[in-house]
């Protein structure tokens, strides 16, 4: 019986391998084996013609590092499970590999966060089945 009260990840077969990676504390992005380009969410490679059914690409461990691109501070809980977390930060992190990634910034006073701040993944094992890839300032 879990006491976790927030929404759990909404996973489909396009995102399932990535969530399995998070559970093992691995930060996977979708990468082209032919040209090395990184994608998130899952995409065909934009740089050239593609092999059938994403055959040129695979989920690949990435750095889990990036910089804050944009962030906001939630002062109201839209869902009762988030009430204890107010104020919390939802952010877009520009990953070192390129994609923008939606996540929480933790381990810092929300009003000390700046656009461009270097951040890295910080895994939150919310239940035995699920791990959320949150981000924190590098070195914290």
């Amino acid at each position, binding site marked *: 019986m879990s006491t976790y009260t*927030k*929404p*759990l*990840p*909404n*996973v*489909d077969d*396009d*995102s399932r391998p990535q969530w399995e990676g998070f559970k093992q504390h691995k930060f996977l992005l979708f990468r082209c084996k032919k040209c090395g380009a990184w994608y*998130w*969410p899952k995409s065909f490679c*934009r740089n050239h013609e593609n092999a059938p059914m994403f055959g040129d690409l695979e989920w690949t461990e990435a750095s889990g590092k990036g910089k804050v*691109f*944009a*962030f*906001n*501070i*939630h*002062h*109201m*809980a*839209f*869902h*009762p499970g*988030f*009430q204890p*977390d107010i*104020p*919390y930060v*939802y952010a*877009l992190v*520009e990953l070192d590999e*390129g*994609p*923008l*990634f*939606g*996540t*929480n910034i933790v381990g810092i006073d929300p009003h000390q966060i700046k*656009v461009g701040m270097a951040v890295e993944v910080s895994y939150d094992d*919310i239940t035995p089945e*699920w791990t*959320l890839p*949150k981000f924190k300032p590098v070195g914290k």
Partner: protein
Amino acid sequence: MTTPKYAIVGLGMVYGPYPEGVTARGAEAEAGRLAIADAGLRREDVDGALQLRRTAGGGERPAWADAFPRMLGLPFKFFFTVGRGGALAGLGIATAMGFLELGIAKYVLIVGGVEDFKNSRRTKAEGHRGMVHSEKAGYWGKPFGDLRAPSHHSFLAARHMYEYGTTSRQLGSIAVQERAWACKNPKAKMYGRPMTIEDHQNSPFVVEPYHLFDICLVSDGAVAFILTTAERAKDTAKKPIWVRGLGSGEIADSLWWEKKNYTHMAVKTAKEQAFGQAGIDLGDVDVAELYDCFTAEVLFQIEDYGWCKKGEGGPFVAEGHIGPGGDVPVNTSGGLLSAYHYGDLTCLSEAVMQLRGDAGERQVKGAEIALVTGHGGELISPGMCSIHTSLVLGV
């Protein structure tokens, strides 16, 4: 300029809250009844029906188990649901035009109704806040607290502030000017409730940088309109409002590595298409009904359509151009921010009223060309709202 082939000939509005026992379905049927009467038609004349729903954006499911055409008793030859996020009117018109062109229908009744306010009261009792969404498969942000539109739309404001130094007071001036319009619209939720910039600044943060008054209303209501061909439009009761141009763009054509899609909207292609068909330029637009789910969306469109340069929207709106008496009348009903949130049907219905000269105290004198825009619908996680529809209506 293309000679217009289609016209809006009837408009029906049901303003919420609904009487006890009335559903959105019933309100849609009632709005349809009003639109048919407004056009001087009979139910028997209407042979096609479209329902407008935020099927992709807000995540509502089509109400096909039962729906307004059956309830209203239309002899319809087709009925289905169209919509993406808050972009409803432009997509509905484009769809109806196809059926009219093929001769499948003579008059198409296009209707969108919401009961978001009623639903929000219900879920508030369970500890939730804001508009109720049903979740799309694979939606990313919920476990991180990306639960409602302000959770990700606020990135647009935050990023514009970072890149161009735009301030909360500048965004607030948009809300203040729209409120001034609402105070001239007796049907607006905020009629009789004027607002100052201090009121905006003192309203609580919901998702910082957005204060409460940067965020649109949640409403109950239904809007119906009838589209027909130029030939038939000559015989209806009201002055036809012509569809002079219609265009569409998607911001997700600029991908993540371009990093531009958080400070502009997909206006460029939509504007070129719509204004090109209409044979107009920006100076010809007498009234602009711009989709305003949040203040920054208005700011972006003012820049993207070219009323000022990119990045200069903050100082521009703070000069007071868009409110009553300004040279660029924007959202003359009070908009989604201060009148009622019926998706972009708020924009479309106001444009029809302005072009008919039926807008009462808020009438923009001599309005002959109206711009109506739509926006919304995630296409890339996290939370990108990507579609933009541009509709030019004229007398």
